[in-house]
């Protein structure tokens, strides 16, 4: 008993001393934080994806409040977040733009694309391309080793069974990280409202494309002719659909002999 009481007293006393010192320091050296920053941060999704170009949501919030970042800078949050931020800051909400989602612009999977050689090195698209220009006979197609899968901050990309990644467009937050990491640039940010896209990147001549892939664009121009609103143009042996003109009528899908447009 005689030991416990002094121990409680001394420890309790120390606790009291340090506690009050900390309380004093918290008052004295408090850093003033703009309450708006906290409110903006609250409004953000908190994925820290970096799509805005800043280190994370916290830094973006600071920059928005300081007026250095645009109100609509958070692409994953879209119009909803932008209007919330606008409300907090008393600024005008930017006009809603179409949501962009990532898309693999290649259909050459294990069945349809011709393989030049077997690659069994480090499972990285970039490394595979260093080895004899990649395993695919096509010089433009998806290598299928999943750099995009690893880059996605929200696990919206999964590797399909046929070594072609599958993107969950509902989960995609439009951060564009997959697009930036893809060494073959076969990922594009496309208008989520557009239903039909040319899923090929090959700028090779049609004759060559036929020999290396079953689903590559051969630049036959049938889709260009079929399109009633002239949304498709043919450049460098490759058709592209302007999704802002496209009416989603589906004529081109019918016309494409190679099922490249889906």
């Amino acid at each position: 008993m005689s030991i416990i009481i002094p121990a409680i007293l001394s420890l309790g006393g120390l606790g009291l001393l340090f506690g009050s010192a900390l309380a004093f320091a918290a008052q004295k050296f408090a850093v003033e934080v703009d309450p708006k920053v906290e409110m903006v941060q609250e409004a953000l999704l908190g994925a820290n994806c970096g799509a805005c170009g800043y280190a994370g949501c916290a830094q973006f919030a600071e920059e928005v409040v300081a007026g250095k970042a645009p109100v609509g800078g958070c692409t994953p949050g879209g119009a909803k977040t932008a209007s919330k931020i606008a409300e907090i800051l008393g600024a005008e909400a930017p006009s809603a733009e179409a949501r962009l989602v990532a898309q693999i612009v290649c259909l050459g999977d294990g069945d349809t694309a011709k393989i030049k050689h077997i690659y069994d090195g480090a499972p990285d698209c970039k490394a595979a391309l260093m080895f004899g220009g990649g395993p695919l006979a096509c010089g433009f197609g998806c290598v299928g080793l999943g750099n995009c899968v690893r880059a996605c901050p929200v696990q919206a990309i999964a590797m399909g069974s046929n070594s072609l990644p599958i993107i969950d467009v509902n989960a995609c937050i439009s951060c564009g990280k997959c697009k930036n990491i893809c060494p073959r640039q076969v990922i594009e940010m496309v208008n989520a409202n557009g239903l039909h896209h040319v899923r090929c990147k090959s700028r090779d001549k049609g004759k060559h494309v036929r020999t290396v892939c079953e689903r590559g664009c051969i630049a036959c121009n049938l889709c260009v002719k079929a399109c009633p609103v002239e949304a498709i143009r043919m450049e460098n042996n490759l058709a592209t659909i302007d999704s802002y003109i496209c009416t989603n009528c589906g004529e081109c899908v019918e016309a494409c002999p190679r099922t490249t447009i889906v």
Partner: protein
Amino acid sequence: MQMSFKTFKGGVHPGDFKSATEKKPVVPAKPPAVAIIPLSQHIGAPCEPLVAVGDEVKMGQKVGDSKGFVSAPVHSSVSGKVIKIEMCNSALGRPVQAVYIENDFQDTWHEDVVPNPNWQQLEIDELKKLIREGGIVGMGGATFPTHVKVSPPPGQVIEYVLVNAAECEPYLTADHRAMLERPEDIIVGLQIVMKVVNAPKGMIGIEDNKPDAVEALKKAAANFPNIEVHALHTKYPQGAEKQLIKVFTNREVPSGGLPSMVGCVVQNPGTCIAIADMVRFGKPLIERNVTITGSGIMEPKNMLVRVGTPLEEVIEQCGGFKSNIRKMVLGGPMMGFSQPGPENQPVTKGTSGILCLTDQEVQLYDIRQCIKCAKCVDVCPVSIMPLFIGSSVEQGMYDKAEAYNAMDCIECGCCTYICPSRRPLVQWIRMSKGDIAARRAAAAAKK
């Protein structure tokens, strides 16, 4: 008397697999019907073609040269007619420009190929010029132009010329056979290099698993008091330039530095022979020893192959591939480059071996998570931490890889060899080196 040497830190002991070819003398390969002479067979600026389609060329004629200092000319290995100048495949996987020469099988030497009967009286500058004109590059596989190596920047005093005859890569025996069959020429080449760099001492290091080669070179060097021959501990990568310097002199080449900074020049025995041939007989580097081995080839051989011989023809002369071949590697299994196939690709100055591996030899494993056992750190001869570089690269963080000194990696492959989680560490490091170099170049261009 065996002098004891300090060894370098790290390294591994892979099986040597040399028995298939180590007893087989070097046989000359048939000259090719069409020689493919790539215009870039070295580290440095690629050559410009000096001939045009339709030109008659002779053996030993220069067909490509460059104005760059770090570069080496290329020569025709046959006499005949230039049929086309097109791209061919290279060991590194990217296509390079090449001169295709149809062989007339006359083997007429070019008039520039003249012996130097008084080669011993040549001045240093003349010797340097001969080494450059002969297109001589490091023949261990890195193909660094030799005339650059023997021209250290002013102020650097070279004390030692080391001959790297360790041949620590498993399977390869081309240098071993060269040491047994042409030991005198190696000594001559070494003496020439010593004269050029004004080095008082030459040392030859051979792994002690080749006692016959140690014997042969000791005999050849018996009359030269300034040349020592030493048996080295058998350990991979004993033949890595910086490790060899550490073993012989206990000096460390600084990060990003060259051997000349610590007073050393290192040459491969094949390079010594090429230098001796060029200086004495005026014969440029147009042929080299190649080991064709592995269980995927019918008849493993050591061959003297002309540069430009298509790989397919060399393989055919060894009886062809076995049906269960899985992988073809140019160079040794640790540092060589695996190839998509032998098509449209020739033997170059850097081809030390053609390794054909079957599905029994090639084992594929799933990559597991790093367990941080640090075995890669223990075996790394340059004392970097491959596990952290690997994880950084796996996540695409190349700047972090740079901070972990990825650029100091000599790509020996010990880390990948030892990793119990089968992580492709050296492959990741190589990838990051490409990226880091590109970023440094971009930053330099900005300035």
